[in-house]
């Protein structure tokens, strides 16, 4: 469990993230691994708003925020500028799931299709949290948000989570893709280091499950625990796609899907029928990943 992280803070205390914020843990960890020789592009969202309120900034590395839909294209511009100047800094684009799965997808796709060597990190808290918990393309089915309310005629979100990791991997075998969880630091660190190294040959996409205290309706001390349960219940599988081949991380422990979902207020309304459907989808997805991974099938 010990990752032996360096002491220096490049993402400092004093930011305005909620107490216990999973995304803040992600960012902190990213900066500890990535180090100083980086240029960060922050997409509009929780992490941008909590860390760059004038006249303060929680960043001790160069950071730019331009807009919401363009985290990846701003990063591309920086990448080409550094290339023109023969500079060595790595370009890391950081955005939430709203800014990645939905409004930011076009720019992200463009950057990866061009092969721009940027590391794009999505801190996935499964909704538009900064604006007060609204559904995004990442929101799991049946989750409650303020735009997918539970009511007499609605059981919450009625769409499945977009499979962005596979979409990004489909941009070519030069793309490195991985999902990670703040509940599994060593795995997260390994993937982040790999992604940074991968920038020598192509773009990298990292999606990190980052629980949101108010959004998921969970206690402020539970982000790490829930991030573990998400993986161990197979709801949020950890895998890489490298050279077009899936590599699934499997763990010996098992957590019941109900344990994971019912530990969050946003799923407290689930009925037996919902669970059946959810379990079916989770198991199918995991089975598919297992087949691809075990057989090292080259899908892209």
């Amino acid at each position, binding site marked *: 469990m010990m990752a032996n992280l360096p*002491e220096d803070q490049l993402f400092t205390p004093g930011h305005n993230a909620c*107490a*216990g914020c999973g995304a803040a*843990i992600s960012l*902190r960890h990213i900066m500890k691994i990535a180090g100083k020789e980086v240029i960060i592009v922050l997409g509009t969202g929780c992490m941008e708003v909590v860390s760059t309120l004038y*006249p*303060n*900034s929680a960043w001790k590395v160069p950071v730019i925020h331009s807009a919401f839909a363009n985290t990846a294209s701003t990063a591309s511009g920086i990448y080409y500028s550094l290339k023109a100047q023969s500079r060595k800094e790595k370009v890391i684009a950081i955005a939430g799931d709203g800014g990645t799965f939905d409004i930011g997808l076009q720019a992200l796709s463009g950057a990866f299709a061009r092969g721009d060597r940027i590391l794009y990190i999505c801190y996935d808290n499964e909704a538009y949290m900064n604006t007060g918990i609204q559904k995004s393309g990442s929101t799991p089915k049946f989750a409650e948000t303020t735009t997918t309310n539970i009511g007499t005629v609605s059981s919450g979100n009625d769409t499945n989570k977009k499979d962005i990791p596979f979409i990004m991997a489909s941009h070519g075998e030069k793309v490195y893709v991985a999902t990670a969880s703040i509940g599994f630091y060593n795995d997260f660190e390994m993937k982040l280091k790999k992604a940074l190294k991968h920038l020598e040959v192509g773009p990298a996409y990292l999606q990190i499950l980052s629980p949101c*205290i108010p959004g998921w309706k969970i206690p*402020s001390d539970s982000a790490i625990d829930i991030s573990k349960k998400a993986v161990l219940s197979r709801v949020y599988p950890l895998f890489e796609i490298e050279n077009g081949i899936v590599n699934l991380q499997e763990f010996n422990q098992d957590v019941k899907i109900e344990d994971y979902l019912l530990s969050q207020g946003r799923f407290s309304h689930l009925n037996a029928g919902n669970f059946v459907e959810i379990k079916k989808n989770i198991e199918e997805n995991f089975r598919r990943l297992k087949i691809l991974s075990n057989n090292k099938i080259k899908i892209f």
Partner: protein
Amino acid sequence: MKAKPTQNKTGTWRTFKPKINLDKCTGCRICFEVCPDSCIKMAMINGKVKSTINYTYCKGCLLCKKECPFKAIDSVKEDKI
């Protein structure tokens, strides 16, 4: 326009205050890793590596308490509320 940074003392947010029991703390660094606000520092106390808390910024989320494998962190309610 030159920015004049101010201190944003998020320690004022706390309802509960984590406290490290130095006898139980083994210096494993897990609390240092999980704190979302980088409020835990490792320090040499009586020749041993132990965790210390930066109360200026600690928001009292108690992740450190939850994740400590040695139950070396307690919490008390903040007096000033």
